[in-house]
């Protein structure tokens, strides 16, 4: 593990709960994430994984109610608006991608840097960085995002999130609906991000691939963390193998 285990977490949740009206989606979840670390949360559908990411980002739908603490660099952010959390260094790639489909790929990326206005930084530099990671997006930069294939859309979504220069990138089911070859490409990018110092919080249906690139993992079941540990150990855990890594039915 490259991450220094004594360093402070960049992101931490303490007793984070989410409820939609009377339905409790997440019950007192505590996870943490260090710089340059990839942490994955696995679990069945409806376990509250997406709610966890949305609550960290402050992007719950209006009927959703979050309680508990979200700490970014040790600082409580759970009452900040999305814009503020984004400005601090959190970014979320949602499950549905939420691209601006009738706008060009480049416009999508440029808007990713909407909050990133500093002297001496031009979005051109940011674009070059993204195009270096995803050369295909450079070829297609003038194409409308809605006309792209599933894998390319995912690249646009990740690229757009990276344009805000996040310290913590949260990915909600990045491989959903992608062909295996494209999926491999996406995971390659994720493990590449580690070298840039970005911490990644990953939610995946494809637990095997996710645990392979991750440093640490949590198993979330019906709103509770039931198991956690080093990713390599989780991948060996008989219960995890049976429930999440077993032969596909």
């Amino acid at each position, binding site marked *: 593990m490259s991450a220094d285990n004594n360093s402070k977490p960049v992101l931490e949740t303490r007793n984070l709960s989410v409820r939609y009206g009377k339905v409790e989606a997440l019950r007192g979840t505590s996870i943490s994430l260090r710089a340059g670390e990839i942490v994955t949360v696995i679990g069945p559908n409806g376990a509250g994984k997406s709610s966890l990411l949305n609550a960290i980002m402050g992007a719950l739908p209006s009927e959703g109610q979050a309680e508990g603490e979200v700490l970014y660099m040790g600082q409580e952010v759970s009452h900040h608006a999305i814009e503020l959390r984004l*400005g601090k260094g959190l*970014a979320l790639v949602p499950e*549905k991608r*939420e691209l601006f489909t*009738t706008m060009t790929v480049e416009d999508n990326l440029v808007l990713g840097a909407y909050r990133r206005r500093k002297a001496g930084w031009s979005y051109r530099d940011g674009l070059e960085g993204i195009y270096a990671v995803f050369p295909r997006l450079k070829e297609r930069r003038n194409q409308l995002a809605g006309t792209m294939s599933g894998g390319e859309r995912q690249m646009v979504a990740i690229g757009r999130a990276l344009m805000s220069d996040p310290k913590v990138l949260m990915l909600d089911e990045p491989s959903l609906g992608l062909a295996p070859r494209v999926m491999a490409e996406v995971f390659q990018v994720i493990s590449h991000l580690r070298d840039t110092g970005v911490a990644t919080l990953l939610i995946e249906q494809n637990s095997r691939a996710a645990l392979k690139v991750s440093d640490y993992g949590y198993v979330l079941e019906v709103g509770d963390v039931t198991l956690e540990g080093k990713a390599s150990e989780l991948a060996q855990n008989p219960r995890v193998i049976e429930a999440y890594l077993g032969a596909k039915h």
Partner: protein
Amino acid sequence: MDFGIFAVLAQDGVTNGAVYALLAMALVLVFSVTRIIFLPQGEFIGFGALTVAALQSSQFPRLIWLLIGIGVLTFLVELGSALRQRRYKPLPRRLLMWSVIENLIYPSFIWLLAHTFDWQGMPMAVQILFTLAITVPLGIMIYRVAFQPMAEASVLVLLIVSVGVHFALLGMGLFIFGPEGSTTHPFTDWSTALGEMPVSGQSVVVMAVAGSLIGLLYLFFDRTLYGKALRATAVNRKGAQLVGIGTSQAGRMAFGLAAGLGTLAGTLIAPLNTVGYDTGFVVALKGFVAAIVGGLASYPLAAAGALLVGLLESYSSYWASAYKEVIVFTLIIPVLAWRSLTSGHGDEE
């Protein structure tokens, strides 16, 4: 009907259509960004025209009182919401300071400007700019007070609030400006003839101004970051929030632009028509019919719809002048039938 009359009616129709196009664009903008049907658009037509008329007749532009009043209200709303959140975080001093500047100091500054200068002698373009400096912040404040606290409500609830704001502004319009209408000075006395058709300078100015505003809007949406941010909000609200384009920021921008477009539309019609505090509503409704042609989503279709409305109105005033409004508003029925047949299913969230 001979060609001469046909041509004059066409000129009239296109001139009015250009004004409706501006209103339709504003309605499409506001709806696609905020899901609000912007009924108070009509009030801005009246406020704009009457304020320019007041400046030209050396009266104090009384709309500034409304700006000061709503400014105080907006400040109180923002202070209240800051105090309510104090439980979680310290008072956002910078935000409140901006609120004081925008909502209290700025209106007083405008009031001072209105008193210091002799606006009557200024060129009309300057008078219009000064009017915009009153109405655009007014539009933004109205969004802040009436709509921002309930931005996530359903389209129907927002429409009902919109109706409420419309009547409130209408009442204040009557109180401020009184029941009498006014006209403003003509833009130009120049006129010419194209073959048999006399061309009034007035029509040329209206078409040129409306045309260049549409061009500017296009550039704004296509080239600038703020324009792209507004389009992005219209395309995907959640995506926009995730890149940090706050719903309320986009809403304020949309309302500011719409208020400006409404004001300009008012100043464009004011030299030819007597505009009262309540004239704008029917004019804005015609812009609304045009916006419906564009499905409240498409700017080019809305502009085309505006020309259609203008021409239809102009020719029906020749053949059936008593029914011209009826004919224009009846247009909405075939348009809705056509839209519901071609678009399959409603895309209301």
